[in-house]
């Protein structure tokens, strides 16, 4: 039971400090730019702002803002899984901050869907049984993500209740919280795999390097890895940004690094095994730009395996951080490739996001980071050992 000692050493505490600074103002400016283009989209239609077309009908507002952003928001899912389901208490200090990042990632992912939906005023149909189409992967994804956002807010609510001193409510909630924790693991498993399943029905429109019946499994594994990697990233960035000492968290991060390496080995084995099984290995080399993208993906996945397989590296943040970064880049590229680069609709069709499209996505990310900063400064979220000095 000695792994519990770290829990006692690190009750969560607000970081405190000023909210207005150069960084937060810059983030707000990016949000402002996005708001302008979002306004244009709602007045003039999607075509006025984006480059999407009927061959590439899903642009980065779907592929980045939802498919990748929810992957980045899998920290809470991954940490809840190892902490509560595998019952490894040593990870507990990082659950809260991971959940907070997930909360904003998913909430904003869910809200940004409304920007992309052509007939957004009908969105509630997703939750109305009269309209359900249970055979649709999109139904599963949409309903699951909506429910998961609710679950995240409930999982997070003890933080707010604690902050405002609602002790009794907090206690009552804590007694049923295990149900929401379970849902908080089940729902992401379902929709993260389904994000891959979305492509199955597209058949020959998706290049054989990415089109496979294993899509749901591959998407689920990358979601888990992204969750662990993003926790390493968050802790490191919070350490730099808030000048915090993270010696106490480092052993946890190195264990996460180990898990990432293990899961990635399974992922790569499945990926190449599947290509061999489908006799598609030669398309690794003869598919032009798609071969190049596949190669970059594979390198980005292989690098963290190579680094994190060595126990010495896992103990050093200077090795853990680039490995986690590479993992996230690889998984992001994998999702971009599967949805956009692999999309084959004939030579007449092209897609590259427009500047306003990119600026809206940037604004959504900025809002997410901004919300995270405000919350960790005001609420007890990060493990509460003292800051290095000042602030």
């Amino acid at each position: 039971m000695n792994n519990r000692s770290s829990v006692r050493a690190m009750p969560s505490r607000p970081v405190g400090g000023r909210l207005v600074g150069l960084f937060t103002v810059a983030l707000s400016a990016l949000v402002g730019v996005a708001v302008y283009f979002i306004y244009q989209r709602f007045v003039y239609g999607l075509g006025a702002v984006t480059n999407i077309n009927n061959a590439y009908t899903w642009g980065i507002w779907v592929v980045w803002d939802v498919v990748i952003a929810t992957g980045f928001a899998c920290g809470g899912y991954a940490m809840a899984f190892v902490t509560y389901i595998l019952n490894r208490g040593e990870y507990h200090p990082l659950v809260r901050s991971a959940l907070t990042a997930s909360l904003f990632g998913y909430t904003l992912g869910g809200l940004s869907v409304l920007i992309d939906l052509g007939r957004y005023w009908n969105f509630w149909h997703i939750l109305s049984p009269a309209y359900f189409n249970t055979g649709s992967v999109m139904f599963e994804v949409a309903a699951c993500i909506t429910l998961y956002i609710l679950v995240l807010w409930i999982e997070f609510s003890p933080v707010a209740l604690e902050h405002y001193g609602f002790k009794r409510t907090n206690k009552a909630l804590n007694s049923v919280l295990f149900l929401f924790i379970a849902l908080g693991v089940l729902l992401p498993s379902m929709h993260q795999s389904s994000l891959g399943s979305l492509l199955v029905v597209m058949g020959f429109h998706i290049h054989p390097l990415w089109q496979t019946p294993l899509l749901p499994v591959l998407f689920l594994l990358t979601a888990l890895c992204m969750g662990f990697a993003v926790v390493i990233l968050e802790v490191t960035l919070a350490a730099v940004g808030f000048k915090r000492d993270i010696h106490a968290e480092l052993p946890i991060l190195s264990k996460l690094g180990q898990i990432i390496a293990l899961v990635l080995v399974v992922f790569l084995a499945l990926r190449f095994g599947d290509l061999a099984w489908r006799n598609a290995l030669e398309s690794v080399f003869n598919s032009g730009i798609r071969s190049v993208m596949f190669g970059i993906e594979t390198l980005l996945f292989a690098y963290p395996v190579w680094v994190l397989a060595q126990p010495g590296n896992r103990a050093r943040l200077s090795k853990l951080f680039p490995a986690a970064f590479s993992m996230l880049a690889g998984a992001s590229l994998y999702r971009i490739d599967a949805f956009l680069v692999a999309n084959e609709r004939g030579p007449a069709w092209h897609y590259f996001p427009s500047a306003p499209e990119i600026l809206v996505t940037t604004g959504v990310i900025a809002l997410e980071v901004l919300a995270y900063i405000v919350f960790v400064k005001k609420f007890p979220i990060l493990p509460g050992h003292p800051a290095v000095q000042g602030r």
Partner: protein
Amino acid sequence: MTVNRRDFLRGGLGGAAAVTACATLGVDPAEARGNLTVPENAIGFLYDSTLCIGCKACQSACKTANELPFEDNTGTGLWDTPLDLSGKTYTVIKMYQNGTSEHKDKAVDGFAHLKRQCLHCIDPSCVSVCPVQAMRKDPVTGVVSYDADACIGCRYCVAGCPFGVPQFQYDTPFPRIAKCQFCKHILAKGGIPACAQHCPTGATLFGSYKALTAEIERRKAMKPGQPNLFPRRTVDSGDTHERPAAEYTEQVYGDKEMGGTQVRYLAGVPFDKFGMPVGLPERSYASVSETMQHSLYGGLIAPAIVLAGLAAAAWRGARELHHDEDGHE
């Protein structure tokens, strides 16, 4: 405790993994959904490329019947000039040209027409993928129609159609999905779709699916060059014209593709020359996708089992952690 944990992993996650594996490998015959079959009284079109003269009367009639705006892609402002299906165009006559373009319906030094429109699949992907049942297949006629009042605009039908048919309207804040709905408003009044009604040669021919199957067989049996009678508007209209039969390619497009379509094509030029996808599987993508979904989520049985396992583990995990915390605060 360690044993419990392992048991849980084996039971819960193992079960989930097994379900996933079954679904993805398609090895669960009890849950597998095969192709849907054509309704008993289904209707359809036969489009015979060798009869089409490229007059585009169908295009024009379609725009009028469906109150669709004109498209000017030549900058002259004189004609409706759609280049392909679009948010403003449900059907379009496309043309294949090769070399000197001297011979109609020949692949070399020839030309040929092809009418693009919704094929009204027997097992449509758009109906399968729509999360809110905005795409529906009429159980009697088999017509695939669109309900804008239900649609959320997610565009999965656009991405999911194997034939690239549904078109989203990007140029308006209140967009719809544009696609041929077989002039269901005219059918309801006892008429036939506008394009077939206005086709002067019977290249677009309306009829019951069965009658059209017989008509396809009749034409395939014709001797190229020999005079034959071809009906206009509907297969049994009695309004016929005589002309020499053309030399058809082997493939009847829509006969087997994706489990078959209710709009079928005959042509003198191979269909890939028109840019149509060829070599498509006979098993519909809708059935592949739905088999995967139903195996994983059918009756929510697998998720319920996994949730029970997760809840048990989380209950123990949360109790230990929070008890530990409370004790030391």
